[in-house]
């Protein structure tokens, strides 16, 4: 079989090739151009120090943010807003964060096969004020642990409410909830 100069053959599963053909048709491109662009981006991604799997996780996070209405806000501003409003409107604010978490959890439950894992990816990708995010499933229980060296006590409490809201929507109920400045430890069990 003759190959054009400067080209190589790569193997792909037949079903994936069909999907690639469909996607490239949708873009009005040839399969070759679509594949070339995908490979180029994969090389670019590698140069930036991450792999396609990580990129896929970021993509899911960004997609969720697009759907749910995500926005960037400076951390300093968030801390100010949290501290200012939390002191005076603690209950109202906690309820809002909890409700936001519930919305998020509902979306994740609808969209992902493993919503708990997707939620962990979301926290890791978007809450970079967290130094550690651990969501561990042990039988019917799930342990959530978040550690941050920069979160204020108020922001920690609100984030804990958000996480609880999300986990409740995913289908867990709170067994134990502890939070101190910069640390959240939740224990949840199935059946909310």
């Amino acid at each position: 079989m003759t190959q054009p100069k400067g080209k190589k053959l790569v193997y792909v599963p037949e079903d994936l090739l069909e999907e690639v053909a469909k996607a490239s048709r949708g873009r009005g491109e040839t399969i070759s151009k679509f594949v070339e662009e995908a490979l180029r981006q994969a090389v670019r991604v590698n140069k930036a120090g991450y792999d396609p799997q990580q990129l896929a996780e970021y993509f899911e996070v960004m997609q969720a943010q697009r759907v749910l209405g995500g926005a960037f806000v400076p951390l300093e501003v968030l801390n100010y807003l949290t501290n200012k409003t939390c002191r005076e409107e603690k209950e109202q604010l906690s309820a809002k964060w909890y409700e936001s978490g519930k919305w998020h959890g509902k979306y994740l439950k609808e969209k992902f096969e493993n919503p708990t894992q997707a939620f962990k990816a979301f926290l890791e990708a978007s809450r970079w004020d967290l130094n550690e995010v651990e969501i561990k499933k042990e039988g019917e229980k799930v342990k959530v642990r978040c550690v941050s060296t920069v979160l204020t006590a108020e922001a920690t409490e609100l984030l804990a409410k958000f996480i609880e809201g999300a986990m409740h929507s995913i289908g867990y109920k709170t067994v134990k909830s502890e939070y101190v400045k910069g640390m959240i430890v939740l224990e949840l069990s199935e059946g909310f």
Partner: protein
Amino acid sequence: MKAGKVKRKTLVAREDLVDRLSEVAKQRGYSLYAMVNEVLELAVKAEETGVDLKRVVEERDILEAAREAGFILGLESLWYEMAELAYEKARSRALKSWFEAGVWLAKRYATGEVEDAFAAFKKDLEAFTWNALEFTIEKAGEKVSVRIISPRFTESYTVLFTSLLEGALDTFGYKIANKEISRGAIRLEALQGGS
């Protein structure tokens, strides 16, 4: 035979890209086949949601830039409600806080090693403000014009965000010459040195 379960077909791709991807696969302990599959699966998945892979990569870069610039990603409705509460309770403190955040943000670029600090600031801020329907920062000679249209911005969020922009422009040496703000719409004109 391992491959017996999955029917394979061949694709023709640019040799240099395949070679580079092959190196990447090796570094990561993947086979070229697995790597190509993963990349194409992601490209197809992105396409199905109306986004191309290039944009996905660019968005990843936005997230990274936002992290470095000290921005947090969350639900905008929550930010708006918190901004409302803070603005209602302590207007001048809230304005000061947003202004200072703008100063900090601009200083990060102004004191960094980028060639054109203002251009880098503009590029990133336009990317971070993806929730706005329209956001443009234009620099022409000694004049900078900022225009934001976002129907979802609440009144207080609009005022507070303006304060952030003012803080940033001030740090870059621009003084506000003209300001028009109304809920969801910001138009600023600033001049270098305030002349």
